């Protein structure tokens, strides 16, 4: 039995009914009087010097209200990480990828705006391009940015423990490789922005963003407006998965157009622009050498990674750190060396995407564990169980895991998927076209530090009790982008105040409501959840103290439960309070008729005593991590972990792969909302499966995306997806509210490798390049056959 009334249930999402009726408003659904339409001129070239921009014909087109370029926008550098501010609102010296933003137009309608962009004349001097990340660092390659010598945007060199010691201890050492292609997040809602100014000089921007707070800061900085005059509001958002966490040129341009025209301006991407703007998954090239002792325990990991990040840094600094740091868990590993380089190339920009930086590294490591198990003649699940960390341990890169249900998760999928029965014995693969594979994963539950250097609280929450009594309003800057954070905040508040969910109103996603760093790094449940609980408790304390004062009883003897004030110390005489309340409500029909004081009465009386009651809460993680360079990335107040088993069938002739079933278990600490935890797990499985088998951005030799649409960039449909089993493991995280921690991203970590391991089991073939398309698999099977002779 749950100790909670609201938490740990399958309460429906607070926004679900609005979304099921079409009432929920996304940015492109918003209407403003005399709104103008914005359009962007993107670079048609991957690398070129800008010699001249002539906007005169565009400006003369009837219906055009403003045309802006770098001349109007200025060239204040911005970006995600202050150490790598390498973007400007518009290109001024060079364009660096097909899609780079050169100018923007506001006009009376979209047709006029688009026609105007086509009338802007840009003189280019074409430059040689860098399209292959693997050679981008070579001598003599064209240089994208002055600030990135040899096109190296960032590099990391870490050595924890002693690799040589690990080598000496090793009984078996092997080296393996895995690379991937750039991928798109493919959220269903294309980015949309609406901006408007007020006569006071304030700017309001509605945007399909994941991080109103960071966007507010970037708008203020890049457009040179006082921070407090910028308000960013996130309406309903149709998925983000990472790319919507960084401020875009389109957001800046739309705001600039609104400022210059004095009229509201709306700009919505078409699907091709979503692909061009990208900021999604990097291309990774990983090489790993892993050593194990005779008994299968890990001795060391030496890891090299090259990230192709496209034309600018975006989130890439965090990406390259995460690629290395998140291999510190979930296994005991004393010795780890990591050398990572992130290069820039003339392609759309990569950034953060679900499982930030760690997904392909995890895939290779989990494949290696399988190969090692095979060589040792061990069961791959047993090998993992032998190595898993337990709560209370610290990784070699100084990440402390305060709760850890890794063993439980792995055993749960093993048993649920009948692993022992299905997996052929002795580590031998079946090679009959049917396969089963397992893998684990490890992820942060919120980044330990903000993106800019600051002691800022990561979130604050304000819970105001309705002055009229009966309900509360929770205000938070947190960004519900579909993952369901509004529902989590409502559930926590209802739980603490003894209310029903529909007595709680959640206002969120608005930079003017409170500080919240946003929906990234799987942080909201743990961090905003903490602040929300504190705010509710603060409000509750004020209500109970006011009532206790009126009734002349100690406040500690009162509690709020199921919409009532309960006394823990005998009967209460509250007849005076009820009388006062009834007097105020002559003519009302929903009057209290219980023998207990209701929340409506108590909150009203408390208001009469105190005035408006506001509870506040805040959260900031304690100082975390080691003292080495880059030690802060990868730190978190808690870590989630996952295990999954995939079952596949491969057509040995055509290479067609059918995933028949995925069983996943995720340790989320404590499931605030059971349905939503499962939903995050299942959504992760879908994204991971797409990345494993079908998703890849394809470029031509001029750096143009040839499949910038959802027909040729394939993501799984309902027919591709198998039945997904989601098992929740609860390890009661001491640093999380009610024991809760992340599920949003951790659940994607095992997906790719468990499918790869299953494909190997089915075919006896290992693929070193993702996605595993039928063509790649057939080629690999044929090569293996000819090797065998």
């Amino acid at each position, binding site marked *: 039995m749950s100790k909670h009334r609201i938490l740990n249930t*399958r309460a*429906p*999402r607070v*926004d*679900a*009914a*609005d*979304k*099921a*009726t*079409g*009432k*929920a*408003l*996304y940015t*492109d*659904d918003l*209407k403003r009087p005399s709104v103008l339409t914005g359009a962007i001129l993107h670079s048609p070239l991957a690398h070129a010097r800008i010699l001249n921009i002539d906007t005169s014909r565009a400006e003369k087109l009837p219906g055009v209200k403003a045309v802006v370029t770098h001349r109007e926008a200025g060239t204040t550098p911005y970006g995600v990480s202050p150490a790598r501010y390498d973007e400007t609102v518009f290109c001024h010296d060079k364009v660096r990828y097909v899609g780079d933003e050169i100018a923007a137009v506001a006009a009376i309608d979209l047709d006029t705006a688009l026609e105007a962009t086509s009338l802007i004349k840009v003189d280019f001097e074409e430059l040689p391009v860098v399209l292959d990340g693997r050679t981008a660092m070579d001598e003599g390659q064209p240089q994208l940015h002055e600030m990135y010598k040899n096109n190296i945007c960032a590099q990391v060199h870490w050595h924890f423990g002693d690799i040589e010691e690990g080598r000496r201890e090793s009984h078996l050492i092997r080296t393996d490789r895995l690379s991937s292609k750039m991928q798109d*997040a*493919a*959220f*269903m*809602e*294309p980015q949309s922005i609406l901006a408007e100014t007020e006569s006071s000089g304030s700017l309001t921007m509605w945007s399909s963003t994941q991080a109103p707070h960071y966007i507010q800061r970037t708008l203020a900085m890049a457009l040179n407006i006082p921070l407090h005059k910028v308000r960013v509001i996130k309406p*309903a*958002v*149709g*998925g983000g*998965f990472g790319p919507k966490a960084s401020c875009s040129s389109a957001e800046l341009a739309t705001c600039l157009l609104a400022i210059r025209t004095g009229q509201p301006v709306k700009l919505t991407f*078409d*699907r091709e622009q979503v692909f061009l703007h990208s900021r999604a998954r990097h291309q990774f090239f990983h090489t790993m050498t892993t050593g194990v002792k005779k008994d299968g325990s890990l001795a060391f990991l030496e890891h090299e990674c090259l990230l192709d990040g496209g034309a600018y840094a975006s989130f890439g600094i965090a990406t390259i750190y995460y690629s290395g740091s998140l291999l510190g868990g979930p296994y005991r590993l004393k010795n780890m060396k990591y050398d990572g380089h992130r290069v820039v190339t003339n392609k759309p920009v990569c950034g953060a995407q679900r499982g930030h930086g760690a997904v392909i590294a995890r895939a290779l490591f989990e494949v290696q564990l399988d190969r090692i198990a095979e060589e040792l003649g061990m069961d791959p699940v047993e090998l993992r169980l032998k190595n898993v960390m337990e709560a209370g341990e610290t990784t070699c890169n100084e990440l402390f895991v305060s709760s850890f249900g890794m063993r439980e998760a792995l055993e749960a999928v093993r048993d649920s998927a009948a692993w022992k029965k299905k997996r052929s014995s002795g580590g031998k693969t079946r090679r009959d076209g049917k396969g089963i594979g397992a893998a684990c994963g490890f992820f942060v539950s919120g980044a330990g530090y903000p993106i800019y250097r600051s002691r800022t609280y990561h979130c604050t929450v304000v819970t105001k009790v309705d002055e009229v009594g009966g309900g509360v309003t929770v205000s938070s800057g947190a960004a519900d*982008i*579909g*993952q*369901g954070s509004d529902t989590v905040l409502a559930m926590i508040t209802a739980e603490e105040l003894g209310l029903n969910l529909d007595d709680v109103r959640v206002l969120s996603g608005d930079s003017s409501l409170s500080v919240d760093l946003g929906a990234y790094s799987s942080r909201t449940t743990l961090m905003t959840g903490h602040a929300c609980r504190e705010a509710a408790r603060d409000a509750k304390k004020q209500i109970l103290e006011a009532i206790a004062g009126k009734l002349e009883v100690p406040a500690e003897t009162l509690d709020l439960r199921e919409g009532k004030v309960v006394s823990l110390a005998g009967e209460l005489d509250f007849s005076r309070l009820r009388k006062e309340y009834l007097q105020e409500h002559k003519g009302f029909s929903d009057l209290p008729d219980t023998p207990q004081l209701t929340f409506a009465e108590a909150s009203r009386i408390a208001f009469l005593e105190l005035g408006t009651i506001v509870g506040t809460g805040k959260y900031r993680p304690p100082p975390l991590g080691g003292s080495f360079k880059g030690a802060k990335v990868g730190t978190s107040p808690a870590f989630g972990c996952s295990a999954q088993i995939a079952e596949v069938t491969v057509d040995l002739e055509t290479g067609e792969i059918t995933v028949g079933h995925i069983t996943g278990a995720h340790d989320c600490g404590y499931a605030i909302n059971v*349905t*939503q935890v*499962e*939903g995050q797990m*299942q*959504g*992760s*499985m*879908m*994204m991971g499966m797409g990345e494993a088998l079908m998703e890849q951005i394809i470029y031509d030799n001029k750096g143009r995306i040839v499949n910038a*649409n*959802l*027909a040729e960039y394939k*993501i799984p*449909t*309902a*027919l591709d*997806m198998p*039945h*997904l089993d*989601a098992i929740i493991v609860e390890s009661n995280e001491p640093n999380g509210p009610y024991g809760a921690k992340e599920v949003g991203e951790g659940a994607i970590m095992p997906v790719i490798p468990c499918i790869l391991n299953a494909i190997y089991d089915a075919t006896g073939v290992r693929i070193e390049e993702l996605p595993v398309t039928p063509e790649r698999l057939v080629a690999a099977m044929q090569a293996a056959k000819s090797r065998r002779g």
Partner: protein
Amino acid sequence: MKKIVSVTVNGVLHELAIEPRRTLLELLREDLGLTGTKKGCGIGDCGTCTVLLDGVATFSCLTLAIQADGCSVETVEGLAEDGKLNRLQQAFVDHGAIQCGFCSPGMLMTATELLRRSDNPNEQDIRRAISGNLCRCTGYQKIVEAIKAASEDTS
């Protein structure tokens, strides 16, 4: 040259003057303000714009407004009955079939058509029916469960 189009949307007859090249999606979202129907791609790849055109699930982004002349269109705004969610909508809410919700209007319309023509669809029937409606959030599992539950609930 604008053309006159008469179209019944969710039971209400509208007469509009509309450019021949404008889509049914634009007619709904821009002329009638029915923004429940979404535009995820505009070129027939995602299914978020699905409406029922004379009862048939149709991508409104690929349908010209003038093609709907004299037709009856149903959108997500017309599903609720007497101000209450219908059983399919309720099943979506109860089963967690909605996350970001951007695919939901189109998904609901496709499922509405399926449930009208088939009493007792099995899991494969449901998956086949919604295979033109992409969802990036749910992995489809809870959507399939919701549609199944709605098909079984005859109350």
